[in-house]
């Protein structure tokens, strides 16, 4: 698959920041700006650009230089036009888009940014990228036990990185344990039992009160006479209390 091979290589070179591919220009501008404002950010950017070159070429070497690991059930076929045309368009962009003077089109105010010349500042990132590519070629250019050895040497870090620094686990813990169990479940429980319980309690309270009062209206004449005399007695006591 020569077309795919070429396009993939172009993409890798571009993202690694090798001149004159388009990735070089964008990275160049960003790193320059970082250098002017914060050296630490520049250092991190520089290191990462080397890392990018390494992992992209690791992919490239493993895919295109080594023998297929196992026999695939379906044979690799030539790309149909609908796939190859977009691939070529994107590859052309990745290769040459750097020559479009974007910096002149963009401006913080109404004044166009002046384009920076490419000077000595371009040397460290490119050198680091080449170094990354070199390491990738050394480790993955041919099938060997070299990668395994490296992994063994940095075992702790390797596992840490392999598990994506456990960030997904942290997310899962926060959502499942904290949000679902500590907030969602209590909210649902409180709603069904406490808030709704209060509303149902109002209804039950009304029903109880009515059941209690209901007995007063029994319809028995004896009861009414009893209330009558109790009432008279009560009022008598009250009047005596008031007037003495």
């Amino acid at each position, binding site marked *: 698959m020569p077309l795919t091979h070429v396009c993939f290589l172009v993409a890798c070179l571009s993202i690694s920041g090798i001149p004159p591919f388009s990735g070089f220009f964008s990275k160049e501008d960003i790193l320059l700006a970082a250098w002017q404002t914060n050296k630490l950010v520049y250092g991190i950017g520089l290191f990462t650009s080397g890392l990018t070159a390494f992992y992209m070429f690791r992919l490239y070497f493993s895919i295109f230089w080594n023998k297929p690991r196992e026999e695939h059930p379906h044979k690799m076929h030539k790309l149909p036009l609908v796939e190859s045309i977009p691939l070529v368009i994107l590859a052309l962009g990745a290769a040459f888009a750097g020559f479009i003077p974007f910096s002149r089109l963009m401006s913080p105010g109404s004044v166009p940014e002046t384009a920076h010349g490419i000077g000595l500042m371009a040397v460290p990132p490119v050198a680091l990228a080449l170094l990354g590519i070199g390491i990738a070629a050394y480790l993955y250019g041919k099938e060997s036990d070299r990668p395994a050895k490296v992994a063994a040497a940095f075992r702790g870090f390797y596992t840490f990185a392999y598990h994506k620094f456990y960030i997904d686990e942290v997310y899962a813990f926060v959502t499942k344990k904290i*949000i679902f169990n500590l907030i969602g479940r209590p*909210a*649902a429980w409180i709603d069904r039992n406490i*808030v*709704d319980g209060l*509303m149902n309690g109002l209804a039950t309270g009304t029903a109880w009160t009515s059941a209690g009062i209901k007995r007063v209206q029994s319809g028995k004449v004896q009861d009414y006479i009893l209330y009558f005399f109790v009432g008279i007695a009560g009022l008598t006591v009250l009047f005596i209390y008031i007037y003495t």
Partner: protein
Amino acid sequence: MNLSLLLLTPLITAVAVLFCRGLNGIRWVSLAGTTVQLLLSFGLLALYWKERATDHAHLQLFEYRHAWFASLNIGYHVGVDGLSVAMILLTAFIMVAAVLVSWRVERMSKEFFFLLLVLSAGAYGFFISLDLFTLFFFLEVSVIPKFLLIGIWGSGRKEYSAMKLALMLMGGSALVFVGLLGLYYHTGGVGGPHTFDMPVLLASGLPAGVTRVFFPFLFVGFGIFTALFPFHTWVPDGHSSAPTAASMFLAGVSMKLGGYGCLRMVFLMPEAAREYSPYIIGLATIAIVYGAFATMMQKDLKYINAYSSISHCGFILLGIGMLTETAIRGAVLQMISHGLMTALFFAAIGMIYDRTHTRLVERLGGLLKTMPFISTLFVIAGLCSLGLPGLSGFVAEITVFMGSWQRTGEMYRLATILACASIVITAVYILRATGQTIMGPLREPNYNGLTDATWNEKLAGILLGAGIIAIGVAPFWLNELIIK
């Protein structure tokens, strides 16, 4: 336009249904009546635009006044502004869809459609009333049929839910009535002619002492209808026990009666509203956040939608409570948007339930394979609920948020931020529910033979879905309608 037509059409249809013979007659007469009503509503919209273009003097158009109980100065006084027109359109849309999805109701169908139509007449009457007494009267008309609809045609713990809903809404009405009487007896001086007439009240102004006492009664009373925390517990039970059409009407229109009432009270008593607005905002924010968290734990699709309605109706109250013009406009947009969206949701859930006989998320799965149309409706409603741009939910929520942010002050900012953050929780429960019911492999082998939507269900879904998308893509006409 004679507004009484809007009241008469559903009532005449309801009576006509009683004289129908055969299931098909009942269905078609109901559909014809609601369709005529929908056309009338569009006619009203067109006439309103035309009239409004020239008439800027009156707040209300097409006014008609007739003394009802002259000795008490109670009048049948109707009129519409942009807000009422929008709500009438919403009701008309939902009613046509509700009749269409009720095609399968075969038990006591005459009574079912009769009650549904009377219910809608109550809502139309409510939206056109300018007299507080008739407003209250129509509010009551729209409560009683719900009790019967849930109690007779419902599912699950239907008697319990019907009783709970009726009692809590009655409680709300009782508060409203106390408030109305309070206002009534403080108008026109001592012994003078008291009045329930809103435009008159608005023109004469109410003493601050009176509104301070009675505004809370009215606001909480109407608020109960729109799931004001902590009086929202009728919502999950009522919605989940109700038959599909009643759920659609309940969530789509009935809860909006409350929002509309609250808004009218705010217009009537702006000073009192300003005084109580921190409390309104507090309760609304609790409803939004707490409702969203409670939704996350629900297992029944109808409970999910009912709890999410609590959260979404919180946005209505939040917008009203913020009192800025944009926020109030957002609240109205949210009323319309939530009405259409939740009706579509309940319609889709009803269709799924009719076929699979379960609403439990864990027992559903892979429905997209057997019922692509219904599943699509479900997904559209879900995406609208989580506020995807291009659908009406986004338009409404963003307007509420922008309006809320205009109110300065730490508490208001906090409320706005919390309300915004709750959208993430909405996404969690909507995507989980959609993923588990619609996507994935078929949960049970006998789901394989299930049929997709019938023509009437498709029509109902298209009607509501089109409304959602139309507002989502071009909200400006609605926006302008509300302002004017």
